[in-house]
């Protein structure tokens, strides 16, 4: 019947609720810890843990026991989900900042939002420092100063098409660096 994880995977696929409970009791603290290290915030980390276990139960075939231990699979999944949360939070913040600039009368973000935003933004700011100068410049203009692509192009003295391509390249590098940084920190 294979090793312990292969047996657990087979039991999950067979709809064995006891198997999920056993896995939760054994690995949830580790999964929660992995999410918490990335997010630094309990409520969001709990959401990640729920996502991870519901996903494991709903799609047990996504875990391949031959590819590695269940513990590694779940913690990596938790980190990825947590990184995704950070990214979506960053996008939300960027949208919000742009919106505030366009509509100054809009109510400010709540203290909770600001804490999460600060944590997420600090990760990104660190990563941005490692970009080449020209790319760092367009990211700072677009995301930290909230300029449109056309405004970035004007401010940097480059054609709009160049600004867009530098921004795309920078974002791709940032995602890679962010993943590595988050994985190393957890």
């Amino acid at each position: 019947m294979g090793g312990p994880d292969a047996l657990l995977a087979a039991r999950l696929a067979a709809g064995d609720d006891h198997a999920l409970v056993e896995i939760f009791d054994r690995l949830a603290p580790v999964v929660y810890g992995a999410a918490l290290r990335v997010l630094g915030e309990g409520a969001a980390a709990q959401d990640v843990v729920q996502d991870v276990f519901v996903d494991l139960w709903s799609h047990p075939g996504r875990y391949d026991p031959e590819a590695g231990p269940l513990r590694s699979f779940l913690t990596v999944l938790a980190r990825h989900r947590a990184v995704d949360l950070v990214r979506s939070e960053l996008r939300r913040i960027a949208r919000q900042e742009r919106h505030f600039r366009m509509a100054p009368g809009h109510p400010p973000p709540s203290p909770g939002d600001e804490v999460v935003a600060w944590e997420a933004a600090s990760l990104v700011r660190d990563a941005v420092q490692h970009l080449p100068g020209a790319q760092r410049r367009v990211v700072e203009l677009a995301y930290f100063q909230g300029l449109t692509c056309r405004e970035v192009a004007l401010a940097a003295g480059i054609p709009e098409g160049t600004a867009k391509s530098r921004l795309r390249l920078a974002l791709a590098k940032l995602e890679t660096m962010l993943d590595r940084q988050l994985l190393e920190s957890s």
Partner: protein
Amino acid sequence: MTTLPHPSASGGLPAGMRERVLAASWQARPAGQPEPEPAEISPAEAFRRAADALDGLLATLGDDDWLVPVLRDLDVQGLVGHLIGVEEDVHRCLSGDPGVADTDHVEASQPVAARQAGRRAHQTRAEWRRAVGRTLDLVRARAGPPPGLASPPELASPSGVASTPELALHGMRLSLDTLLVVRAFELWTHENDIRQAAGLPLAVPDPSALRLMTGLAAPALPLGAARTGLGPPVHVHLVLTGPGGGTWDVVLGEGGRDPASVRIVTGTVGFCRLVANRVAPADLDLDITGDRGRAASVLAAAAALALD
């Protein structure tokens, strides 16, 4: 859902998180339901597929192969004769003949099995095939065509396997759907008897048919326990792994307030072969939690479900 294991190591987690995550999980997919769930087929379709598989095997046999001893004192031809006899009893059963209600499954078919001796193999095969066709015709006639349709459709979904008993055959009281799954089970079992005698690899039903077979056998464990005399009650958490599997919670035995608990995990095909009494529990790949003696009784109850 069953009583879940007591939390043992949720230390370090926020209060209520365990319950919240598990509740969300059960909502996403009910306990007991396999993933992936095989496509649903009707019991009539499962029977038809089992008959086609056996017929396909018979078509490949040479004349000498039909004389190979298979089961009890039957060679291949005699075993197919047994199946003709059973099918004839099914016809009588479906026609409402009470004479087959309590006859013995093996003895009742013995005259038909015996009369195959000396016949040409293709005659026996053709007679069995006709008998199967007649069964399917009777089943369709019993289902009746829905209004406005010229031709009868397939039977209802296999959810009807546990429906009200309405038929009486060979000491069993069962619904039409259950009868058809029992028949599919028997055809698959005898197909493998012949394969084994001929030195051929064993056949495995498709996941949809297996799901019907496990869905029939697992809840029927109390019936097997009644035959073997299990004794004090035991709560069985049965997990059948692989295509066509699933998870069942069944209580066997009677009396007592707190039944013992046993968890048995094994492969779907092996379990079905156990139910057909074609393998011993020792031949199975088993993962047992709880009293092993009680688990052995449960497995004996599974083997007692066999018709032979």
